[in-house]
């Protein structure tokens, strides 16, 4: 998803290429804007977008929007992680549950989170709860399916050894199933995060009730394209940062502990 996630050579650093590419991109953008092909309210220059970013940062509106979206996302994603782990484990351990509820999960997983917005609005109104519902339901099945796969792939000997040493029920889940399935579960969290992040922006656009998505909506209503682009840059940067910092760190830690890297 992030550029650094694409396969790259370890020996050679492409940092200078990257820097040059982005400087070039901004320069071309500036030149096109200056050429005056389109009016600046339709095609703002990078300078104007930068101004908007700085303005939004200074008056706190960007930060507020960012914090609102992040808060909703954190609550929604927590719900989907907790629910997804529980569902996934039961599906992996109870075949009857897997054949019934599991088949429904597969179906529900194919629904984009944005499609839950109408239900969210009708059930919860134009509230935080409605947006959180959209986030949680959009992300929960990715966590479920990855947890299921992870638990299914646990070496039977781990479970046998644990049971043999007296681990049953909750103990077996917390001390064996979850840690043993964790490498798979991280993929679930990553996917869940990606769905949740898309979900929260989409839901906020449609609920038009605070947050970064709402700021996009406002930008559209006011024909303020530079604000739209400024907010989009914040959305992109957040996505990259969470992926590269949070998940990469978590993944590296688990992988090195297991000796998979």
């Amino acid at each position, binding site marked *: 998803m992030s550029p650094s996630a694409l396969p790259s050579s370890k020996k050679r650093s492409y940092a200078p290429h990257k820097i040059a590419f982005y400087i070039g991109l901004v320069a071309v953008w500036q030149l096109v804007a200056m050429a005056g092909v389109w009016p600046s309210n339709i095609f703002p220059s990078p300078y104007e977008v930068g101004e908007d970013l700085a303005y939004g940062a200074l008056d706190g509106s960007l930060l507020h929007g960012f914090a609102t979206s992040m808060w909703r996302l954190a609550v929604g994603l927590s719900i989907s992680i907790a629910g997804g782990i529980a569902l996934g484990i039961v599906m992996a351990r109870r075949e009857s549950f897997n054949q019934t509820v599991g088949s429904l999960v597969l179906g529900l997983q194919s629904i984009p989170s944005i499609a839950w917005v109408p239900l969210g609005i009708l059930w919860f109104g134009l509230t935080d709860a409605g947006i959180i519902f959209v986030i949680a339901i959009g992300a929960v099945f990715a966590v479920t399916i990855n947890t299921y796969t992870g638990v299914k792939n646990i070496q039977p000997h781990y479970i046998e*050894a644990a049971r043999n*040493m*007296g*681990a049953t029920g909750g103990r077996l889940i917390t001390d064996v199933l979850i840690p043993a399935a964790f490498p798979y579960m991280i993929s679930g969290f990553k996917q869940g995060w990606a769905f949740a992040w898309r979900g929260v922006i989409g839901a906020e656009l449609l609920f038009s009730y605070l947050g970064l998505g709402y700021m996009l909506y406002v930008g559209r209503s006011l024909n303020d394209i530079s604000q739209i682009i400024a907010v989009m840059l914040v959305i992109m940067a957040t996505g990259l940062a969470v992926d590269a910092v949070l998940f990469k760190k978590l993944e590296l830690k688990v992988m090195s502990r297991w000796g998979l890297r």
Partner: protein
Amino acid sequence: MAKLEARGITKYFEHESHRLQALGGVNLKVESGDFVCLVGPSGCGKSTFLRIVAGLEKPDGGQILFDGRPVTETGPTRIMVFQEGALFPWLTVRDNVEFGLKVSGIPREKRAEISERYLDMMQLTKFAGSYTHQLSTGMKQRVAIARALVMDPDVLLMDEPFAALDAQTRDLLLVETQLIWARTKKTIMFVTHNVAEAAVLGTKVAVFSNRPSVVKREIPNDFPRPRVPDDKELIDFQHEILQELRPEVRKGGGAGAAAAPAAAEEAPGEGASGANKDDTDAEGTVAVEEEKRREGGTR
């Protein structure tokens, strides 16, 4: 009363369309403090039998009596040391060793005290903070043995624990296992198809027949300890075991099974490692048994 008694244990495996009888009514008595080695041709079901004793698999017939009472569930009175160790890769060596204590609710300080003792006994103190992938195969088996011993089980069940080790490491662990047995007075059941291992370790060798397996003969082994694989008298003893084993292997005719006595005959100490190729050599039926075993484990 025997510590552990198997009465008429039978077990079938489904193999494509037909049923295959692995265990044909195994009877075995193990007294407290016995070190019983189970040997038999590859795929004869001795590992399956051990898993039934552990309660990890249900027999189709017969009973396991523990202190005279029938047992069906698995539990820490009979702790299993798996062939591949089955150590938890997400835990450090120390946490692996303490796992069983933790699940039985023993407080942290007490756990540390106990694990320290066994880490020391298995010469693992230096590696206490390592993760298992950082250890050699031999080290892993030491951890697996330490993890089993901390549970202070009445019976220790070892399923070919040294099969994946190189000869040197195995010889070292053969000596150490005897010392542990002498120090802890544990009752041990040890599955191997390595005749030399059986001769070195056991107070008794139980020879399994070819499928459907029964215990064909129990041979007591009173040689003085410590024993090493190339003791002259032990080599004669190994031949005695082989005498029992050879017709069974011929009946089986599996590639893996045939390798065992042939190699062992040339030079029992060395040949043992040749026999270590394990059940993986054998044909379909064994693979099916293995598969069933794995499947059984997921439940």
